[in-house]
């Protein structure tokens, strides 16, 4: 009996990050690391604001669905944890550079 070998098929990212890197758009090439970082921080901040707003709306009775508020809070939590991990990595890299012998 012939058994096909198992092949690992890579997951394709459709439209978001990978494609924008491959595109030879002059504007994309100029995107600085600090811009990317501040955009990501803005997104995280937006999620935090959404969570806060949904909590207030829930307390005020504007939201009928409890899950809506809870999920907004969860999203904010996950995004903040991701931000903290990125920050830790950046601080690690900085300290690594500072430890370099001159």
């Amino acid at each position, binding site marked *: 009996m012939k058994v096909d070998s198992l092949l690992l098929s890579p997951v394709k990212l*459709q*439209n978001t990050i990978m494609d924008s890197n491959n595109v030879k758009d002059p504007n994309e090439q100029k995107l600085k690391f600090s811009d990317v970082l501040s955009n990501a921080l803005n*997104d995280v901040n937006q999620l935090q604001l959404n969570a806060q707003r949904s909590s207030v709306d829930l307390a005020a009775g504007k939201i009928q*669905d409890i899950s809506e508020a809870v*999920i907004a809070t*969860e999203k904010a939590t*996950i995004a903040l*944890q991701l931000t903290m991990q990125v920050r830790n990595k950046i601080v690690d890299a900085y300290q690594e550079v500072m430890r370099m012998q001159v």
Partner: protein
Amino acid sequence: MIIMGIFNAIDAAASGMSAERLRMDVISNNIANANSSRTAEGGPYRRQMVVFEARANASSFAQIMAQQQSAGSGVRVTGIMKDQSAPRLVYDPNHPDANKEGYREMPNINIISEMVDMMTATRAYEANVTAVNAAKNMALKALEIGQ
């Protein structure tokens, strides 16, 4: 937003939770009106049912093509329909709504099937909560890489 990609699973499960909550509302309304023989539009109350459909957020051709290789974005409530089956007839000659033969038209609601539907809605809601928790755990586990 760059980071929204990791929330697809959570968004889909959240839409499922909203849909099941609406279904629960409708079932509660059915149970509450199981004995209502009058409505605003006349006749007895008719059983209501929710209709769900898979949600696709594609509007352009490119998005539809991209969706062939990606998951959808949850569930959407198409509408609340009325069960058109015949009303139940109950012999109750003294009731003001009884007809000449003494029968009263009662809603076409079987309380047992409504209870079963309610249990289904509860379990489906729980399943969506589990999916949210699993997606969250996956995201948080990924953050533990390299620690």
